[in-house]
């Protein structure tokens, strides 16, 4: 099922992340998926997130599809040139994968193999252009394809980026290049998100707000220092610092953020980063 059908029906779409393991033991990941499959619409299968080598997103997307769970196949340009990217997209289609999220990918030195060769032959925008071309029945070299793939195509945007204007110009380009929906970087400031949505509403594409439940005050401070475009305001940090039950407060905060922002956008994308077991509680708290 393509996510587009849900957006069209006016459903508030919920997605979460399914992070492939480092290694071949997929038991824990599949358990997390089973736990959430009835509460969410689709799972983003990350492609070596943060440049850390892991089991591939194509294989895991296929495993989910086999179990009747809807994957969003994430594809980054960090590790593959345009030949491999196009081939992987065709492979994804024949495996029955219907939703793709196209990203540039983190730089290699931020991950666990800093000595690897950074590829970046294409980038998010050119990958989207390439995908649009495949969907028209041609590859990037202009050769005709035998049977053409068809995906519901996503991209990402960072509403906290500085300067916001160039981020929005890029978002516009992504839409022109073929992006049909957007997931955002984590947002902790509903007021700023409202300003962002006011700017991008005119594009008429569904936007899913990104939520990362805070695990501790330390994590919040770490993100403020190290993650560009993410700002956790002080009152949330002190809430996390003063609480006795961190999980409970974290769930409350995440639920509250979603409640405040769900009227502004068309869906929510929760990145639980290992706290998958608390996602149902977050959704309850958000009234979803």
């Amino acid at each position: 099922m393509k996510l587009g059908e849900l957006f069209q029906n006016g459903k508030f779409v919920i997605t979460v992340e399914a992070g492939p393991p480092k290694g071949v033991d997929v038991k824990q990941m599949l358990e997390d998926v089973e736990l959430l499959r009835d509460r969410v619409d689709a799972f983003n299968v990350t492609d070596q997130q943060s440049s850390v080598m892991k089991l591939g997103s194509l294989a895991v997307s296929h495993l989910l599809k086999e179990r009747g769970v809807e994957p969003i196949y994430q594809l980054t340009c960090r590790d593959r040139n345009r030949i491999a990217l196009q081939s992987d997209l065709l492979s994804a289609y024949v495996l029955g994968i219907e939703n793709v999220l196209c990203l540039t990918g983190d730089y290699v030195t931020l991950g666990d193999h800093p000595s690897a060769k950074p590829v970046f032959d294409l980038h998010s925008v050119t990958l989207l252009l390439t995908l649009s071309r495949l969907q028209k029945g041609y590859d990037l070299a202009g050769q005709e394809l035998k049977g053409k793939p068809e995906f519901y195509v996503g991209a990402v945007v960072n509403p906290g980026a500085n300067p916001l204007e160039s981020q929005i110009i890029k978002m516009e380009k992504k839409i022109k290049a073929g992006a049909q929906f957007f997931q955002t970087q984590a947002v902790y400031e509903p007021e700023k998100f409202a300003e962002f949505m006011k700017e991008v509403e005119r594009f008429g594409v569904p936007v899913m707000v990104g939520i990362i439940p805070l695990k501790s005050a330390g994590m919040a401070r770490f993100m403020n220092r190290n993650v560009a475009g993410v700002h956790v305001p002080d009152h949330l940090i002190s809430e996390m610092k003063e609480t006795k039950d961190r999980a409970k407060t974290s769930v409350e905060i995440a639920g509250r953020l979603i409640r405040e922002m769900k009227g502004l956008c068309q869906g929510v994308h929760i990145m639980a980063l290992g706290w998958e077991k608390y996602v149902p509680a977050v959704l309850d708290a958000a009234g979803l």
Partner: protein
Amino acid sequence: MGAITSVDRKNPFSYKSRMVIDSVVLWLMGIAHSRYVKPLLLRLFSLGQRLLSGGNGDIEGRFQRFFDGGGLASRVVYGTVFLVEKWTKEVLFGCHNCGQCLLSYTGYTCTMRCPKGLRNGPCGGTSAAGKCEVYPDRWCVWYLIYTRCKRLHRLDTLRMMHPGVDWSLVGTPSWVNLLAGRDKVAEPFGLDKETR
């Protein structure tokens, strides 16, 4: 031409001193490029057009055949253009010789200096202070492009859609590629039809 994606390793200037040079150059370039460089290129273009085709016909093809021909004249022209372009752009802009120049659309900022070589806009990793996520002591290339294009009132150029790098052109002179129609970045001077 080694790994283009590894930034600034061979540049003779330190990053800080180049930033100072950059801001002066940017200001001068804004004037010089539009007043002198582009008219000169256009003039050379039409001169070449007259010489090669009598002013009509498949001009790009003729340029291409001229440069591919490998005769003495073409080698001299190619070599001269190559050296002039390489030296000026390397010194002034930290050019990485991608062979398909975007400088005139990016506020004279080489996009190949971005670690990811992004050509269509910033990633989400620009810090609040405008620094690069990969090299926190350096400016984000796309932060520079944005601020410079804004100063030059050329934010419209950020909306241009650029294809992926043609790696077969890397290390060759972009001016020749432009004339020979190999450079698909923009139609030769297509952006500037109004000035033509």
